[in-house]
């Protein structure tokens, strides 16, 4: 293993391990404060997630949405843009998929209806990504603020369209069902998953992860995107059209997050429900951070955070499930703190064996330059 590879692996894994340790201690303290035995609670969490087929199915279902939002945030960060808007892009994607599904005649077969709904979801999310992309490319407006503000605008708009636009079934927060565009559950092929929400959207998520990896590391656009993320001035001098790359990256990021809406709308419930996102967009930031903005890392991190979230339900008999929300925050904070710390420690380590080893480029580009 070359020193550079080793260094990259150390930089990637050490912060995560440190964060897990901190989260474990924080979790122990919370469990003890509730008068329970940590060992028993952690065992219950494992049993309720990876201990049976239903638990695994639920984890896979939750990981699917998180993989989309994590990929979305990662694509943005690779271009040096911090997309805090995955929450509303996810909602817009699910909403657009439902609108498309409701508009399509039911006699259209699922092989036509499902792709059209997925395309609508990508378009819906991409449209929400377009606004901060344009503001950044045209006016230099900071995308963090723009995406936060847009979250509220989009969620309020969807809420209005559901309530006043007559889309919601009376007395509910959801639309009519869209059975003709339903994505089958995993249980239809693997009966062990019976009862869980896991569905074939997970295949779309894996394809999306592979596609993002291929685009980022094997295409010209991906190269330009990463170049802009690492050094916009240098990229500009190298002939890359930086504003255009920002715009495309934000649209792509929004489209990926938007596609995640399909998991709930077509795969699980079969209708759009106001508020279905439930923070999965914000958790995408955590997924991208822990996954170090690499598609493979993002998929693994999505599984980790899905396990935590499902694990919360499993332990609820002993300790309030809100414990996992605290742990999610602790993990993110600890990773954010240990990433620069680990980098500093590794730099300080004497490197007699590799005198001229160049510093590995940071997988998390410095983003908020003000």
């Amino acid at each position, binding site marked *: 293993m070359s020193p550079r590879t080793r260094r990259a692996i150390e930089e990637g894994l050490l912060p995560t391990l440190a964060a897990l340790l901190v989260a474990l201690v924080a979790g122990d303290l*919370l469990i003890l*404060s*509730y008068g329970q035995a940590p060992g028993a609670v952690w065992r219950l969490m494992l049993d309720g997630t990876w201990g049976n087929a239903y638990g695994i199915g639920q984890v896979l279902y939750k990981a699917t949405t998180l993989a989309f939002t994590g990929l979305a945030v990662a694509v943005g960060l690779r271009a040096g843009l*911090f997309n*805090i808007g995955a929450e509303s892009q996810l909602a817009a994607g699910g909403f657009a998929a439902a609108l498309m599904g409701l508009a399509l005649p039911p006699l259209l077969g699922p092989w036509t209806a499902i792709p059209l709904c997925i395309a609508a979801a990508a378009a819906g999310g991409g449209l929400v990504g377009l*606004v901060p992309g344009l*503001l950044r490319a*045209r*006016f230099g*407006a*900071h995308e*963090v*603020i*723009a995406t*936060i*503000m*847009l979250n*509220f*605008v989009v969620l*309020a*708009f969807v*809420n*209005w369209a559901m*309530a*006043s636009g007559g889309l919601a079934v009376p007395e509910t927060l959801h639309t009519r069902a869209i059975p003709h565009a339903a994505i089958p559950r995993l249980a239809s092929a693997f009966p062990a998953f019976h009862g869980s929400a896991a569905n074939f959207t997970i295949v779309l998520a894996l394809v999306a992860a592979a596609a993002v990896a291929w685009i980022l590391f094997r295409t010209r656009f991906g190269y330009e995107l990463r170049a802009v993320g690492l050094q916009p001035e240098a990229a500009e001098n190298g002939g890359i059209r930086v504003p255009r790359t920002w715009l495309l990256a934000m649209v792509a990021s929004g489209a990926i997050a938007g596609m995640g809406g399909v998991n709930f709308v077509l795969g699980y419930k079969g209708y759009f429900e106001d508020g279905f996102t439930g*923070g999965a967009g*914000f958790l995408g*930031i*955590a997924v991208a*951070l822990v996954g170090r903005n690499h598609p493979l890392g993002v998929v693994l991190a999505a599984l980790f955070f899905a396990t935590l979230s499902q694990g919360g339900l499993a332990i609820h008999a002993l300790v*309030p499930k*809100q*414990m*996992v*929300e*605290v*742990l*999610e*925050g*602790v993990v*993110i*904070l600890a990773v*954010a*703190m*240990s*990433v*620069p*710390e680990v980098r500093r420690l590794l730099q300080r380590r004497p490197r007699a064996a590799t005198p001229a080893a160049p510093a590995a480029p940071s997988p*998390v580009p*410095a*983003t*908020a*330059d*003000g």
Partner: protein
Amino acid sequence: MGDAMLGVIFLQTLRIAVPYLFAASGGVLAERAGVVSLALEGFMLGGAFGATLGAYYGGSAWAGLAAGVAAGLLLGAIHALACVRFGANQIVAGVALNLMVVGLTRFFLRLAFGSSSNSPRVAGFGGEGTAGALATFANPLLWLGLAVMPVLAFVVLRTRFGLRVRAVGEKPEAAESLGVPVGRVRWLAVIASGGLAALGGCWLALDQHQFTDQMTAGRGFIALAAVIFGRWEPVRAGVACLLFAFAEALQIQVQGTNAIPSQFVSMIPYVLTLVALAGLVGKSVPPAALGRER
């Protein structure tokens, strides 16, 4: 529109604006020192919960106020530890802190009061039964809230500490070379921003005499919008808070008439901020070193 109605709207505006004013003052202070303030929402929520615990166990609104501010200072210190000591990405740290505080308040709501939605009734400002205007004007937090932006303007623009805050927010290297302890100034600014924003949470909890799950409901982000819309100037940000609060108060009054859907009124602060960001009504330019990790 009659005089009585105007009076009601005026009073509503003040009541809605107070938490914004506190949180936005914290936002201005931290961001002028160069640290991104996405955690205002968490500071407020933590302050509201601390105030509720203090008022419940201490039996008075003042005990609540003290506990709420202490919670905010503590959360501010955690944010400073992450952003200043460890050089964590400030946006990530803010998002994490918000998430963590929501979880912590829910967890300890269950632990302390056995409820997943709200605390029991606690002491607060404004005596029992004195409805409306009198109770509001008897609330010391109202006057503190109205004074906070002018005071902050004086501190930031006219004092030695304020000069240092602006220096570390604009040109930390230059400040460093002149002997300004950049890290220490940022620590102070971020901790103080936690306490200030927490006062906004105290107002909510002590005004409603209880804590309810996620009772800040995005107010920290409206305050952040006011900071940006006010171009990081304390008085301008204060005016933005009042403007946003006025729009909300107006909306509450016209609710019955269905003139404008409430969702569109709730968009006003965010849309205005987007427009300001685009530079269509005078460009919003942040402090030069805002968000820079080192």
